[in-house]
């Protein structure tokens, strides 16, 4: 094995921990549509999930704010699949999560309900309360954006691996 790759891999083995973090809301921008019947198809798909409390839609920007019920186990992938079933794609997904004094840093990883989150391009800080994180993975950004990200995030080995249960997230500045 190439020593350099090995060294990089070792440097970037993320800290793994179980964290109490709950997704309360997801803000999804869907791509490839401009008609209200198309938006309605996505709307109906999202609402058919039992964990969804309500969906607030901006038809002009194709933004779907999905409010989730308490103690749900919805993963971002489930929401993405719903948009795709309607025949469209996710152009952006920002999720609201509540954290309890979680110290995050670059490449920090935690596991939750069968999936994991890796923080990318993140400075060390403590997250407490509700925070917004943007999912950077393929299928959660536009194709154009993914092309750029696969270069800029290439230092994160799990990002390149593209495991569908590893989400790479960036904390949004409020």
């Amino acid at each position, binding site marked *: 094995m190439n020593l350099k790759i090995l060294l990089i891999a070792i440097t970037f083995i993320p800290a793994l921990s179980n964290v109490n973090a709950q997704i309360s809301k997801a803000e999804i921008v869907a791509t490839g549509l401009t008609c209200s019947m*198309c938006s309605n198809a996505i709307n109906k798909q999202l609402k058919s999930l039992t964990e969804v409390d309500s969906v607030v839609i901006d038809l002009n920007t194709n933004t779907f704010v999905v409010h989730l019920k308490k103690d749900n186990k919805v993963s971002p992938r489930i929401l993405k699949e719903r948009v795709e079933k309607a*025949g469209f794609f996710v152009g952006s997904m920002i999720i609201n999560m509540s954290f309890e004094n979680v110290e995050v840093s670059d490449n920090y990883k935690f596991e939750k309900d069968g999936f994991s989150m890796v923080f990318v391009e993140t400075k060390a800080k403590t997250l407490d309360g509700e925070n917004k994180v943007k999912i950077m993975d393929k299928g959660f950004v536009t194709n154009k954006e993914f092309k750029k990200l696969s270069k800029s995030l290439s230092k994160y080995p799990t990002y390149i691996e593209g495991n569908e249960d590893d989400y790479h997230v960036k904390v949004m500045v409020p």
Partner: protein
Amino acid sequence: MKAIILMLATCIINSLNAQELFVVTDPASNVPAGSVSVRLSNSLFKEIFEDGYNYHLMPEITWGISGKLMVRASGFVSNRSNTLYAEGGSIFTKYRFFSMDDLHSHFRMAAFGRYSFNRADIHQEQIEIMGHNTGFETGIVATQLIKKVAISSTLSFEKALNNRPDYDFPSDQSSHASNYTLSIGRLMHPNKYTSFKQTNVNLMLEFVGQTLNENGKTYIDVVPSVQFIIHSQGRIDIGYRKELYSNMLRTAPDGVYLNFEYTFFNVTN
């Protein structure tokens, strides 16, 4: 005539939207997974060689098996034999194999196939398996959507077979054809969406052509139409079809369309 005016009036009161949902062609996009839509298509075409009009009624049901695959079953009823007569049916499937989507645009491609049976008499050189001939059609469609405008083009091969049991396909006619279409649709109203209940209005212009492969005979039609989308779930199309050029035998090339469609979402999810 009263009935037509009443139907038109009903159309104008109601309405719907989607600039890709063309009247005489299908876009590369499919219906949503798990949805079932029911359509009632009516067309009234003027006979050239005799008095009167040729009325076709086409009930259709479309099901989205997945986000990429859909199937549709159609029935054909017409008054060509002077009374309403069930002449045949059709099964259609479309698979979207390519998508390149961006925020307010997409480019998509799909492949489709259709098989139809029909027991009516064969009375023209034009091959039309939607309501006239037994046969099959297979082709590809590419659709580009940019903001409020959709442009779509179809290329297909269509083959006519015998209209069993009574009418064999005439041996002196070309039994297969190449079809090509170009459709443009634009969302006219609203400028800004406020709710799903808003009526949307789309204007469409479609060009439909056919060349018979064995003798090169060709027709080209233009179909302008207006479409209303109601409550983001229902749809009404009013279209007019006019022959621009033809050197083949067609018995009723010009006429009007009036289609009603309603989509039930998440029926099989």
